[in-house]
């Protein structure tokens, strides 16, 4: 029973990791990529580490794993917000349907 629950949680986490990586590779803009990874990676790490804690049972190790989960849940959105704020302050323009090729212009704007 515990093994089934743990496998289920870890499989859901792997699916979220894979979708976050797909978004990082395929989306057109820096902001869109941050939108994909900031949420999928947080929840994926939560699910996989929670599955490992369930598999371990109640001990000091599972408490430490839960502490890692709580810290990731606090730290990962904060880091994403900091990067997004840095991009906004440096006036990286978001991608719209009218802008012809976002990667080249964004690269130039970053190197200024």
């Amino acid at each position: 029973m515990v093994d089934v629950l743990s496998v289920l949680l870890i499989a859901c986490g792997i699916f979220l990791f894979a979708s976050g990586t797909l978004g990082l590779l395929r989306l057109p803009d820096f902001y869109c990529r941050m939108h994909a990874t900031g949420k999928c990676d947080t929840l994926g790490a939560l699910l996989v580490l929670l599955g490992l804690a369930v598999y371990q049972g109640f001990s000091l190790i599972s408490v430490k794993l839960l502490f890692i989960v709580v810290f990731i849940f606090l730290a990962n959105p904060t880091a994403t917000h900091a990067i997004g704020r840095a991009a906004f302050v440096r006036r990286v323009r978001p991608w719209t349907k009218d802008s012809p090729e976002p990667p080249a212009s964004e690269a130039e704007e970053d190197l200024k």
Partner: protein
Amino acid sequence: MNDFFLWTSIILGLLVLACLYRGVGGPGFLNRIVAVNVIGTKIVVILALMGFIIDRIDMFVDISLVYVLLNFLGTLAAAKYLERKGAI
């Protein structure tokens, strides 16, 4: 159950390789920082899985705890550094 953990960490390693494409060739510094942050989160999970695979979870859980802190601090420092004008 050990085989399942092994295959999970293999899949995560392949995902890290896929993220490395964005980290190496991604346009601009900001894309690279995002890719490094994502790779760091995946590495933390791989470390915890690796502790279960080779039966030293009491050691590896501390290592992954330290890795979470260092990953967060590194990303935050890079973002704060890039916020100033003309820092690049």
